[in-house]
């Protein structure tokens, strides 16, 4: 096995989230950039795949310590946007920055974590072995690893299954293991692409408590989700449609006049699937 399977789509991205412990002072120093106090910035992103325009002038900013949700229908461009912010997509127009730096240059990679939708784990390793593998990759000290692994196994309720091989897990359990592996090292900026599909409600709620703790501690989190109740749990939400930002704001403001975020979504996007 020559390469860690973190990001299967592309080969050069395996070093994306390899770094560990950082002092919070680094982050503070970096944030004084002129216009962008923001941790993440996307400006007029354009990306075409043949005849399909996946991103069509998408712009948004995420502040430090903010929990920002990207929602939108299937094919809206959420995944392409997240991959662009991770520096993994060549843009046809616009620019991205992460902590004030172009992510494609690789200079922010150790401060950035990404959980793509199709997360690759070693299928012939057990739950515990996969966690240890990623801890090694992130160069986590043993004690830190043990504390975090215990916590994450608790939240994901995978504790009773530590010795089960990854290929014998159900779809939801596999997703939870991927999530635990992605959360082991706590980067300054975390990008999560639909992390909770197939994850049960208990773990989903506990995961959101954990994300709120992370951002309370200064982490910046960008998360895409098809769950509208999760959108309501974000500080701010951007509704993406046809590669553009349709609406943006605090969930409470956006949903004024609607019974729920789902009602808002349906009224703006329509029933057309």
């Amino acid at each position, binding site marked *: 096995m020559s390469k860690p399977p973190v990001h299967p789509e592309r080969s050069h991205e395996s070093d994306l989230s390899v770094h560990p412990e950082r002092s919070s002072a680094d982050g503070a120093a970096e944030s004084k950039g002129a216009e962008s106090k923001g941790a993440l910035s996307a400006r007029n992103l354009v990306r075409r795949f043949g005849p399909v325009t996946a991103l069509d002038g998408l712009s948004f900013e995420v502040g430090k310590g903010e929990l920002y949700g990207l929602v939108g*229908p299937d094919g809206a461009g959420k995944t392409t946007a997240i991959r662009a912010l991770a520096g993994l997509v060549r843009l046809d127009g616009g620019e991205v920055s992460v902590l004030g730096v172009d992510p494609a240059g690789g200079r922010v990679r150790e401060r950035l974590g990404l959980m793509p939708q199709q997360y690759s784990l070693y299928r012939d390793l057990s739950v515990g072995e996969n966690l240890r593998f990623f801890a090694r990759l992130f160069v986590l000290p043993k004690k830190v690893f043990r504390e975090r692994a*215990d916590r994450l196994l608790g939240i994901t309720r*995978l*504790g009773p299954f530590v010795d089960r091989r990854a290929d014998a897990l159900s779809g939801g359990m596999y997703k939870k293991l991927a999530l635990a592996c992605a959360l082991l090292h706590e980067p300054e900026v975390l990008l999560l692409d639909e992390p909770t599909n197939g994850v*049960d*409600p*208990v773990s989903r709620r506990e995961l959101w408590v954990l994300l709120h703790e992370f951002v309370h501690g200064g982490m910046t989190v960008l998360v895409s989700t098809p769950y509208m109740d999760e959108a309501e749990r974000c500080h701010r939400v951007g509704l993406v449609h046809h590669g553009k930002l349709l609406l943006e704001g605090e969930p409470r403001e956006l949903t004024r006049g609607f019974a729920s975020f789902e009602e808002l*979504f349906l009224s703006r996007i*329509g029933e057309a*699937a």
Partner: protein
Amino acid sequence: MSPAISAAGLTRRFGGFTAVDGVSFEVEEGEIFGYLGANGAGKSTTIRMLTGLLAPTSGEARVAGHDVAAAPESVKASIGYMSQKFSLYLDLPVLENLLFFGGAYGLSGAALRARADELLERTGLGGMGGATTGDLPGGIRQRLALACAVLHRPAVVFLDEPTAGVDPAARRAFWKLIRELAAGGTTVFVTTHYLDEAEYCRRIGLMVDGKLVALDTPAALKRTWVPDLVLVVRGRELARAAGALRAREGVRAVAPFGAGLHVRVDPARLGEREVAEALGAAGARDVKVERGEATLEDVFLAVVDRGAPGEATP
């Protein structure tokens, strides 16, 4: 009339691990029955036994009148099945997929063609028969997969997380179809992690560690399992104050929700005012507390917490 599905003491062990542990229930004809539980609780193993794919270790089950252990092939002929990872031929046109699955179920000729056309209309795919399946959005493919699963007019349909990762508009359209199916007499057995969808089920069974711990209508489950007062809290500096609130007696749960909190308390001990005061004392500002309603998510959390009090920790 005998039930569409009945399970009595249904059990499946894998080595020393009991995946499904003495599960008993009945589902009536035309009922939409929701089967919920955490990942690994035993939902999929139950479905594999009920669909004749896996023999029970002990206990028995009948589906559409057939014993799953004695007559698994008769069971398979009477049911439809669709999972989260539904398999369609992505390089084939929509209509070809329907004709292929129809053929696999023994349909053919003009009858198959008429049935395929009927389902294209009913699932809102009319006019899309010639489109390449792989070019269609996930929500449309999902409806096509359902159409493929019901081509042969099965008495019972098993849907295993059919809507995972699908956006709200597509989920709504999908559930409309499910309700129409049930109204036509088809029995629907569905698993989901979307608890707002579970509200559409007539009854819900909740599994914890292989056991069926609760079984009732959504309304009755809420009354039985969540007698707590549910409070919706808004204000500033709440995140810091939440910890102090959690430690207070009478507080059963505190969960962040947007910039606010969802709090469940023992109504005999605490009310809106006490919660507002406790948060204020812990540094929160501009606190507003309102009454909310219990959700099926609250039920799920209550059942899982009480159903597995001594859960093993790593």
